[in-house]
């Protein structure tokens, strides 16, 4: 059984490991700093010419296939697929699940979906429901723009704090036993809202949630930055990450260069002519975890990593109704033994 530490952090005593990951991204991410690490870099027109939604679904399926291939598993070996994306009614993941035809839980946590999926998958294994579970999340620049912002070809000047939605799908196979880093603890995030309303400034909106979750993890497991090789937030980008880092500092937790963000890692800062702050989107945390963090854990370059996907839980409707942006962050700790 899981052991509860503090108010919202849990420690597992059973052997839950990440045994494989898959990460597939689009061409803009494919020329970024992690270009050599992804399983696949696909152009939209290569995998579907019908719609961007179909492209994203196929991209997610491709990441599933890579993860299963690397672990020498087939769909039937996975007891449950858990995942989500940014689109209304989480259609991308549901349509991918239609192709897989295996037990499926669709979840929504905005850009924090990957954290939530990992936690639910870990719970499924801990409780004995599953031996192997797949956790995934996905986002695509063009489908997200359509849903949250303006038509692609509209000539609008981006705000200085705007982030670019990562075109990427990532997944991780969790297993009871096996070879790979162990999931030792997680903190279930609570919704935090410090009143930021600007849809083009989601990093600032999510930073307090990230700080809150990281502080909770630190306090309840009695750790600090020194105990981790890397603490990685999901998609705060430069502005949000700076805020989170200063908030943590104000509480007495100073990092030593081991605090980073998937949204910052995914693009070449200042060189790629896109939103200069970095990436956002549900696919940010999952594709970077699959391409960058997991291999480093496997070859023991990193031994203890906290992944904190961050999510902004608004919709276009609530934004038009002048509501502020409620945010959440879920933390998962991976450790080599």
């Amino acid at each position, binding site marked *: 059984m899981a052991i509860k530490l503090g108010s919202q952090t849990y420690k597992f005593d059973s052997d839950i490991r990440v045994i494989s990951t898959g990460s597939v991204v689009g061409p803009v991410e494919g020329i970024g700093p992690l270009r050599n690490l992804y399983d696949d870099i696909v152009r939209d027109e290569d995998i579907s010419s019908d719609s961007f939604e179909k492209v994203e679904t196929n991209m997610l399926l491709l990441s599933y296939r890579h993860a299963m291939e690397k672990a020498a598993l087939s769909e039937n070996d996975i007891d449950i697929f858990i995942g989500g994306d940014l689109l209304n009614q989480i259609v991308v993941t549901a349509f991918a699940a239609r192709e897989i035809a295996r037990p499926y839980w669709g979840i929504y946590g905005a850009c924090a979906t990957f954290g939530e999926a990992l936690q639910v998958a870990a719970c499924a294994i801990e409780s004995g429901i599953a031996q192997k579970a797949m956790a995934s999340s996905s986002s695509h620049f063009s489908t997200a723009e*359509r849903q949250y912002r303006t*038509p692609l*070809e509209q*000539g609008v000047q981006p705000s200085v704090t705007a982030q670019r939605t990562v075109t990427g799908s990532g997944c991780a196979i969790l297993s009871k036993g096996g070879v790979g880093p162990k999931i030792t603890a997680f903190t279930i995030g609570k919704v935090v809202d*410090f009143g930021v309303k600007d849809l083009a400034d989601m990093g*600032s909106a999510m930073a307090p949630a990230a700080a809150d979750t990281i502080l909770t993890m630190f306090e309840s497991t009695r750790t600090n930055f020194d105990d981790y090789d890397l603490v990685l937030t999901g998609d705060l980008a430069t*502005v949000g990450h700076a805020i989170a880092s*200063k908030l943590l500092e104000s509480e007495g937790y100073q990092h030593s260069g081991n605090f980073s963000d998937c949204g910052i890692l995914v693009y070449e800062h200042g060189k790629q002519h896109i939103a200069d702050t970095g990436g956002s989107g549900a696919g940010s945390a999952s594709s970077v975890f699959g391409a960058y963090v997991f291999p480093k854990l496997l070859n023991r370059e990193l031994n203890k990593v906290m992944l904190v996907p961050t999510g902004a839980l608004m919709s276009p409707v609530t934004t038009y109704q002048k509501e502020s942006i409620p945010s959440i962050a879920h933390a998962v700790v991976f450790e080599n033994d």
Partner: protein
Amino acid sequence: MNINKMPEREERLRSVFSEIKEESTPKVDSFSRSLRAFIVGGSICVAAQVFRGYVENYFDETEAGIYTTIMLIFVTAVLTSIGVFDKIGRFAGAGSYVPITGFANSIVSSAIEFRSEGMIFGVGALMFKVAGPVIVSGIVSSWLVGIIYFFMNFKR
């Protein structure tokens, strides 16, 4: 509607948040943005004026104005559909959409965007998603002006 009292830590974070946010947010370089808007917007107007001068050789003044407008809309539509106009807009901001070009761009880009939902529920229904409010406010304000005009003449 706080059911629980706010935990102390969150209160502390809240008290420092706005200051930290302020100092972490990059400043907007309004000068260079304005300059870019001025140069691009001005160039569009100069090009339109040159075109108009040329057309006036063949048509009267009113007609030449109409043809110039049509030319601006046509060029914008073409540039939008080949994926150039969004880059101009990204660079120039208001400079590229204050002339009638912005209006044309918003309609064409919406039509392209929603093509995948079909001709009726996609293009037909959503083509004016961005431009719609502009048209509505145009109609409402012309209606208001009409009423004022009516009463001004009524008095006479």
